[in-house]
C-alpha cells in the first residue's frame, strides 16, 4: 500500500495540477435545431471556421440542415455565397425556407477554380457564410479554406461525399447525414468529444430565429 499516494498530497505539493475545462463562449451561430445545438460543444456552428457536411447522396436533407442558418444570416443582412453548387438552387423553395434571395449570390466556377473562389469569398469578410462543394480536395486545399475562414471571420460550409469521412480533415466540425435509417452523426467537433449516439433525422426545428414576414410559417417545408 506504500505505493498508493493520496492525490491530495500531490496537489498540495504542486506536483500535479488539475486541468480546468475552459469555458468556451457559446457560439453566436446556432444551427436552428435545438437538439443539434445541444450536441455540439459550442452550442452551434463553430464561428470563423470551416464545417463539413458529409453526404452519401444528394437530396437527403443537406439544405434542410442549412436553411435555418442561412435564413437567420440573410435576415441579418449577411451575404451568403454559393460556390459552384452542383444543381441550380430553386429560388421558390429557398424563399419558402425563409432565405432572403437578394442576399444570396451564386458563383459558377470550374472545379479547378472553385477552391480559389471559395477562398477569396471566405477571406474577404464580405460574406456571412460561404457554401462550397470542393471536388476531391487535397489536404492543402482544405487547410487553406479553414485558414481563410479564420482570416475572414466567416462561416465556411463544405459539402463533401461520405467517402471523405475516412480521411482526416482540418475542418472544425464534421457532420454526416446518413440514410436508411436517416440519421445525423457528429464525426468531429472542436472543443469536445463528439456525441456517441447519432441524432435521428429529421430534427425537430427550433423556434423561428427571426421573424420572416414574407412567407407564412406553415409554408416552411418540413421535408427530409
Amino acid at each position: 500500500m506504500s505505493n498508493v499516494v493520496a492525490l491530495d498530497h500531490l496537489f498540495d505539493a504542486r506536483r500535479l495540477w488539475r486541468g480546468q475545462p475552459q469555458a468556451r463562449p457559446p457560439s453566436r451561430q446556432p444551427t436552428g435545431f435545438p437538439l443539434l445545438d445541444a450536441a455540439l460543444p459550442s452550442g452551434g456552428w463553430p464561428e470563423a471556421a470551416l464545417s463539413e457536411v458529409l453526404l452519401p447522396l444528394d437530396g437527403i436533407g443537406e439544405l434542410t440542415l442549412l436553411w435555418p442558418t442561412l435564413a437567420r444570416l440573410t435576415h441579418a443582412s449577411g451575404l451568403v455565397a454559393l460556390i459552384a453548387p452542383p444543381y441550380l438552387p430553386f429560388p421558390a423553395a429557398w424563399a419558402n425556407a425563409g432565405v432572403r434571395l437578394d442576399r444570396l449570390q451564386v458563383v459558377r466556377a470550374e472545379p479547378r477554380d472553385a477552391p480559389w473562389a471559395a477562398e477569396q469569398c471566405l477571406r474577404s469578410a464580405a460574406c456571412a457564410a460561404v457554401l462550397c462543394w470542393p471536388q476531391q480536395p487535397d489536404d492543402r486545399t482544405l487547410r487553406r479554406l479553414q485558414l481563410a475562414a479564420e482570416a475572414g471571420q466567416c462561416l465556411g460550409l463544405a459539402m463533401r461525399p461520405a467517402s471523405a469521412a475516412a480521411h482526416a480533415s482540418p475542418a472544425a466540425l464534421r457532420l454526416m447525414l446518413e440514410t436508411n435509417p436517416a440519421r445525423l452523426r457528429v464525426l468531429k467537433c472542436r472543443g469536445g468529444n463528439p456525441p456517441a449516439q447519432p441524432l435521428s433525422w429529421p430534427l425537430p426545428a427550433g423556434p423561428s430565429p427571426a421573424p420572416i414576414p414574407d412567407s407564412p410559417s406553415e409554408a416552411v417545408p418540413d421535408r427530409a
Partner: protein
Amino acid sequence: MLWACILLPQLALDGVLRRHATPDEPLVLVDGPLQRRMLRAVNAAAKAAGLRAGLPLPTAQAICARFAAVEHDPADTARWHDFLAAWAYRYGAQVSRQMPASLLVEVEASFRLFGQWPRMEAMMREELVALGFRHRIALAPNPWAARALAGVHDGLAITHDAPLRQALGQLPVERAGLPPEAATSLRRMGLRKLAQIYALPRAALARRVGTDTLDQLDRLAGTLATPLDCYQPPDHFQARIEFNYEVGATGQLLFPLRRMTGDLAAYLAGRDGGVQRFVLKLEHERGAATEVPVGLLAPERDPAMLFELARGRLDPVQLAAPVRALQLIARELPPFVPSGRDLFDVRPQQAVPWEQLRERLRARLGDAAVHGLSIHADHRPERAWRDHGDSAEGPPLPRPGWLLPQPIPLRERSPRILAGPERIESGWWDGDVRRDYYVIETAAGQRAWAYCPVGEREGFMLHGWFA
C-alpha cells in the same frame, strides 16, 4: 509651371545593359548597313579597352579582342522610352516623351505631394539608378529651356525668368536645339552664345536664319507657348526579353524575371495600380509557348513580392524545350488598396467589400460567373427563376431546393410516390409544357421531384431534389 527634363544620354545602351547578365564586360551597340558596321555606343568596360562610338566594327575588333556586340534596335529603345514615361507618370500628370531620349515632366503641381524640388529630384535619381538608366536632370520654367539646359548641365534648377535668361544667355548656340544649318551659320557669323543672339534685332535675325529659329528662341525664353504631346499610360503591361542563347532550366530565367517584375512594379506605382493576375510566357524555338499564370489574393505592387510569387510558379515548371524568349503580360490592373487601416478597425486584414470581391471573381471566372437569384412568375420550373432583378411571389406549393439544369430519366425501379400529381400545364406561346409532377422517395432515401407525361405513371423524369 516648372518642367523637369530627364535626359537619357545612353538610353539604348542602358536598355541593353540592364538585362544583360554580365554588364561589366565590354559591350558595344552596332548599327549601319552590313558592309559598314559602326559602333553606336560603348559601355564603360569597352571604353576602358579603347573603344569609342563611331568606330567601324573591324577597327574595333582590331583594338579589342573580346567584346559583345549587340545590334542596335530602335524599336527596343522606343519601348524603354515608353517604359520610363510610364515611370515618370507618377511624378506629374503631364509627361511628354516627344523629344528624343528625354522625358519632360511638369513637376510644380506635385510639390505638395513629394516635397520641394531637391527632395523630388533625389527621389527621381535614386529610382533611375535602381532601374539602371544614366540620366541628367534640369529644371526650368518651360520644357524647351529645360531640355536645352539638361544638354549642358546636370542638376541645374531654375525657377524664375530672370535667372533663366541669364542661364540661356550662356548656352552655346549649337546646344540650343536650333535647326542645325541655322546653328552653323550663326556660329560662322561669330555668334557663340545665345546672349549675343538675343541682343540682335528680331526682324534682321528672322531674315537671316528663318522663322523656325526665331520660334525656337522664343520657346526657350518662354514667350512662345507650343503645346507638347502628353503621354497617356497604356492600360496593360507587357514586357519581353529575347535571349540570344537557349535557356534550358528555369533557374536561368530568374535574373530576367527579377528585372521584369521590377519593371512591372515601377509601372504599377506610376499609374497607382496593382496587379492580381499576370502571365509569364516562355517562348520556344518551335511549338506553342509555355504559359505560367500567376495569381494573387489581392492586388499587389511590391517588386519583391511579385518576384517571389512568379518565382514560386516558375520553379515547378518542366521545360519541354529550351526557352528563347520570356514575356510578362499583365492585362488586368485593378486599383491598388494599401493595407493601411484605421487604428481601431478590427476588420480582418484582407477584407474587401463585396463589390470588389465580385469584380475579382468575375475577372477570373468570367463575366457571367457571379449572379443572384430571384423568382420569376412562371409556372414552368425551368423558367421560374432569373439570375437578376426582384423576386416575384413564389407559389405556396412544395418545390425542391435543388433543380436539375436538364431533366434526366429517373433510374428507380419501384418509385414510392409521396405526393402528387401536381399538374403544370403552361407556355403554349413559347415551349409548351404539360407534365404531372410527383414527390418520390427513392430506395436510397432521397426525395426526388419527378414528372411524367400527363395522365401516365411511368417514364419518370427527374427534375429536382428535396434536399
